[in-house]
C-alpha cells in the first residue's frame, strides 16, 4: 500500500511490464482553483485500475484530461508512449484511435441506429468494406451480449442495453485501453453487476488495459486489479483492493465505510469563478 500516488507494480505481474498509461506531476486549474494537485500514477498493460473518490474530488477532471478533452497546466499524460498533454489536435486524434471510452450516459447518437453507432469509429478510421464492417459490428454486439439489435435506435432500448452498446462501440477498433466513466451509474444493482462482469470479461478476453472512474465501492472492489483514491485533487491511497480495504488512512476508511465527515467549507464566489473559467476553456 502506498500513499500519495506512488506507483507500485501490480502484484502478480512481472516487474518491468510496459506502462500503458503514465501520469506525472499532473496539475489542473479552473481559474484559481487547483483541481488536480500533482497527480502521479501509472497503469500497466492489461491492468484494470479503478479511480475512486467522492463528488468533486477531481476524478472526472482527471479522466477528461487523460482522454484529451481538457489540457492540464502542468505535467504529462503518456498514453501508450505519446504525451496527450502536449499533443496537437491531430496528434490527439491519433492517440484517441488507440483507446475507447464509455461515457456515463452512454453518449450514443440518437440519430443513428445501434449498428450505425458501433460502426461509426470503424467507418471513420478504416477503409473496410461495408459488409466486413457489418460483420465486425455483429461480433462486437455479441461480445456485449446483444444480438439482433442493430436496427434499433438508442431510445428504443433500456439504459443497461445502451451502456452495453456504448461498450461495443468503445471496443469497436480493438483498442488497447478502455476508459470507463461511472459504468454503473443510473443502473439497477443487477444490471450494474452485468456491466462490471462485462468489463472484467472483456479486459481478460481482449487483453485490454482498463481505467474505471467511479464512486461505487461494490463495483470498484469487484473489478479492480488496483485502485487509487482521490481526495481534494490528490491521490491519498493507491494499492490492491485488499490493501485499500485494510488502509489506515482516515479519509480512505471513511470513504470505504461511507461514514460522515466534516463538511468542507467553500465559498460560492470561488466555486462559481472556477465553473465560469472552466466553461471558457
Amino acid at each position, binding site marked *: 500500500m502506498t500513499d500519495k500516488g506512488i506507483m507500485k507494480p501490480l502484484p502478480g505481474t512481472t516487474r518491468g511490464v510496459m506502462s500503458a498509461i503514465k501520469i506525472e506531476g499532473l496539475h489542473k486549474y479552473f481559474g484559481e482553483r487547483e483541481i488536480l494537485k500533482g497527480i502521479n500514477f501509472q497503469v500497466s498493460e492489461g491492468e484494470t485500475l479503478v479511480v475512486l473518490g467522492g463528488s468533486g474530488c477531481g476524478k472526472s477532471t482527471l479522466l477528461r484530461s487523460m*482522454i*484529451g*478533452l481538457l489540457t492540464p497546466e502542468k505535467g504529462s499524460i503518456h498514453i501508450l508512449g505519446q504525451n496527450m498533454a502536449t499533443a496537437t*489536435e491531430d496528434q*490527439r*486524434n*491519433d*492517440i*484517441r*484511435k488507440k483507446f475507447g*471510452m464509455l*461515457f*456515463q*450516459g452512454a*453518449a*450514443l*447518437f*440518437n*440519430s443513428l441506429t445501434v449498428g450505425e453507432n458501433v460502426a*461509426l*469509429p470503424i467507418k*471513420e*478510421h478504416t477503409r473496410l468494406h461495408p459488409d466486413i464492417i457489418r460483420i465486425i459490428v455483429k461480433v462486437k454486439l455479441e461480445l456485449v451480449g446483444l444480438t439482433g439489435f442493430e436496427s434499433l435506435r438508442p431510445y428504443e432500448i433500456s439504459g443497461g442495453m445502451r451502456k452495453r452498446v456504448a461498450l461495443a*462501440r468503445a471496443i469497436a477498433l480493438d483498442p488497447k485501453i478502455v476508459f470507463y466513466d461511472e459504468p454503473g451509474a443510473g443502473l439497477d444493482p443487477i444490471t450494474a453487476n452485468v456491466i462490471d462482469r462485462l468489463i472484467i470479461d472483456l479486459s481478460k478476453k481482449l487483453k485490454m488495459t482498463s481505467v474505471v472512474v467511479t464512486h461505487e465501492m461494490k463495483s470498484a472492489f469487484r473489478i479492480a486489479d488496483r485502485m487509487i483514491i482521490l481526495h481534494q485533487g490528490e491521490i491519498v491511497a493507491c494499492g490492491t483492493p485488499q490493501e485499500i480495504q485494510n488502509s489506515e488512512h482516515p479519509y480512505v476508511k471513511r470513504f470505504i465505510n461511507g461514514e460522515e465527515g466534516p463538511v468542507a467549507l467553500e465559498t460560492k464566489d470561488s466555486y462559481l469563478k472556477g465553473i465560469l473559467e472552466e*466553461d*471558457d476553456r
Partner: protein
Amino acid sequence: MVHLSSFLGAIGKQTHEFFAQIARLSELIRSFLYWGFLAPIEGKKSLRRELFAKQLVFIGNESLFIVCLVSASVGAVLALQAAYQLRQFGALLYTGSLVSVSMTRELGPVITAIVIAGRVGASITAELGTMKVQEEIDALITMGIPAAPFLVVPRIFGLVVMLPCLTILSYAVGMIGGYLVGVVGLHINSDLYLHGNFSALVPKDMWTGLAKSFVFSLIIGVIACYEGLSVKGGADGVGRATTQSVVLSIISIIVADGIFTAIFYYVFP
C-alpha cells in the same frame, strides 16, 4: 464606492464574455473553413456524403410545404395591397410587375430565410445542444473524429445549397399567389398580368436575391451551429440557445438585408 466597483466589475465581466464569444465564434468559422475547403485539398476526409444528403433532404425537401405556403400567402397579400394603391391611379395592370420585382429582390429571399431560420436553424441548435448536453460531442471527439466535419460542415453546406433553391421556389410560388389573386380576385386579364409580371423582371433582380439568400444561409448556419455548440447546462440551456439562435438569425438576416440592398442600390445600380 461598493456600487461603483460592482458596476465596473459587471462591465468587465460582460466585456470579457463578449470577447470570449467572439473568440469561440471565430474558432467555429475557422474550423468550418478549414474542414470545408482546406482539409479536402490536404487529403483529409471532410464532408460526409450521407450526412450532407440527410441535411439536404431535411433542409430542402422537408421545408417545401412551409416555404410554398408562406410564399404563396405573401405573393397574394402583396398583390392585394398593391392593387389597393394602384387602383387609385388606374394602374392595376402593374400589380404583376410589383409582385414579381418585390418577390425576387426582397421578399422571396428574406421570407424564405426567416422561415428556414425558424424551422431549420432552431432544429440545428436544439440537436447540437442536446448532443452537447448528453456528451455525444465529447464521445465524437474521444473517438478521434473532429466535430466540425461531422456536425458543422454538412449542416452549413446543406443550407448554402438548399436556401437559394428554396428561394427560387419562393419566387415562383409567390408570383403564382399574386397571379391567382390578380386574375381571380381582381379580374385582371391573365395575359396582361403575366406580361406585366415578366416584363418588369431583369436578371439583376434574380441574382441579387440569390446573392442575399447565399449570405443568409451562412448567417443561419453559423449562428445555429455556434449556439448549439455553446449550450451550457441541461434542457433549459438547450431551450435558451434555441430561442437565442432564432432571434439572432432573424435580426441578422434583416440587418444584412438592409446592408445588401444598400450595396446593390448604390454600388451596382
